[in-house]
């Protein structure tokens, strides 16, 4: 009889934990639905990058660090610029000194170079984001307007999302031990502004916009140019796209 009573208490406790979990999840879902419903028409924000226009000045990198309080040390980046040098023997040399904002010191003889170009990188805000899939507590999530964000108050700092991201777009903030990444300057775009990297780019290599808007320059860019995404075979379906992307870029 006592054993039965013990088992009954155990069952009650389990049911209490499960129901608590269900209530919390439901409430959270309701709040999220309310917030998105009140945000207006559906949008799908992203960025197109015209690689042939990038001159590798790295202003986007420094502006992003300032705007988003990214640590200055060269181990933490929300965006960075890669410099590719394809040599005549088909070998490829890549650098990203200080994320692309530093000076290139590599000693490559000019007559060995076949072609050279710059590629800005950032979070690809994938349609099938592996970081969202693996986050154990749902701290990384996709907004209704297609942007992948991290909830600072929920992240437990396990780094699983860093392992799952194929693009190296995430880092752990050393001060707070929380995963961080490009938000497409969510705080700016919600006010109708451009992300800061787009704002400071002197050659308009970065184009920001809403894929759902017919008048968006982003949509025009997508219509007029050949576009590619990074690592398409992984089926992450990146929303960030590139024009005239070289085959050497990974």
């Amino acid at each position, binding site marked *: 009889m006592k054993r039965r009573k013990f088992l009954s208490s155990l069952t009650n406790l389990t049911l209490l934990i499960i129901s608590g979990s269900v209530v919390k999840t439901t409430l959270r879902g309701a709040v999220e639905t309310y917030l998105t419903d009140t945000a207006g028409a559906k949008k799908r924000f992203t960025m197109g990058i015209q690689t042939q226009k990038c001159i590798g000045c790295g202003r986007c990198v420094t502006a992003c660090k300032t705007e988003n309080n990214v640590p200055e*040390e060269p181990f933490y980046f929300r965006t960075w610029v890669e410099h590719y040098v394809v040599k005549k023997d088909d070998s490829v040399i890549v650098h*990203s000194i200080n994320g692309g904002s530093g000076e290139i010191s590599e000693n490559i003889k000019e007559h060995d170079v076949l072609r050279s170009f710059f590629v800005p990188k950032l979070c690809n805000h994938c349609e099938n984001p592996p970081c969202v899939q693996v986050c154990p507590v749902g701290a990384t999530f996709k907004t209704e307007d297609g942007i992948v964000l991290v909830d600072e108050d929920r992240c*437990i700092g396990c*780094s699983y999302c860093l*392992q799952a991201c194929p693009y190296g777009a995430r880092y752990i903030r050393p001060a707070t031990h929380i995963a961080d990444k490009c938000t497409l300057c969510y705080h700016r775009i919600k006010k109708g502004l451009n992300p800061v990297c787009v704002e400071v780019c002197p050659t308009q290599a970065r184009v920001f916009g809403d894929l759902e808007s017919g008048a968006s320059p982003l949509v025009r860019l997508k219509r007029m140019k050949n576009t590619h995404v990074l690592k398409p075979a992984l089926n992450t379906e990146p929303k960030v796209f590139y024009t005239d992307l070289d085959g050497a870029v990974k």
Partner: protein
Amino acid sequence: MSADFERLAAILKQVTGYIYPNEIEIHWSILIVVYPYITGLVAGAFILASLVKVFNVKEVLPTYRLSLLTALSFLIVAPLPLLFHLGHPWRSFEIFLTPNLSSAMAMFAFVYAWYLMVVLLLEIWFEYRTDMIAWAGALKFPSNLFYRIISLFSSDTSEKATYFDKKAIKAITVIGIPSAFILHGYVGFIFGSVKANPWWSSVLMPIVFLFSAIVSGIALILLLYMVITPSRGEQLDMKCLDRLASLLLYAMIVAFSLEGLDFLHRLYESEESIKILSDMVINRLFISLVVMQILFGMVVPLGILMLVKLARFNDELRKLLYFVSAILIQIGIFSTRWNVVFGGQMFSKSFRGLTAYKLEILGVEGLLTALFLLVLPFLILALLLKVLPPWGKIINQDASVAS
């Protein structure tokens, strides 16, 4: 924090080729090596215990209770390396409250809770129930109260009740075997399901983890049995040892074949990542993978165990060879976990360069913490052996009771 920056600056100098700038730091440290190592020992020890109850392997009966208690000791410690690793450990309860059901890691909490509460604790309770009642009756206060509490005030030692205990143990073991498979296979899945990482992403990963777990678990019980039995002034049961060594040999053959298959498959397919992975094995993991894991951790003990099977060595030499093999296997399996965890983080996902790992000595994720977490299960086991002696006797100042 400036120490962290200095450490990263030192690692930056060791970077070869091109890596994405966020990839300099290795985020899953030695603690994440300890985690699958410990979990593997739990699964392996439990599977050995279940051989007695489900498959009726009578020779290894002397290790049955020891296996259960070992599994429990290591299972208690298993979540600690994860907890110490978290940036915000006090938020870990969120995994229970709002789990992301698509996350393999979120399922850990449930697999762990299931295994601890439904499998191990229940089986140990049923196995020790009559002993606990006997100890509660024979010992003085407060020991008798303690045993009354942990026996959940059970007092029925009738034939019917003990028959029910046996039935329950068998049922729990039958559930426990797939649970042990899930526990460790799932740890393999945490790594194997990361499609962005070609070193990890493999459908074989859970099964490779599982068999290496069985190998490490049997080897650990063999070691513990060989150390504990003489220390109690008793003779080692050579039939039990020989059977343990045979089981170890068979499990190793399967584990080695699976790892070999995985290696051949990667080599034959030669996908985009093959160059950087080869570079990593040669320049970063040579000692830990080729020397420690494959040579000393697998080939040598496999050779020794095969030799013992073929030749007729005397008892003393066999004991020595079993002991040496089991220690080599432990080193090998720890190296396996090391190579999985660090191998998956040392190469860039740009497939163009390598970073390095610098093991800290102090610090939460340092060597000392890892050593502490590796010693802790043995301390818990020592305590459990005092409280629930597998040999059915309580050596106590109050009384000595044979069950």
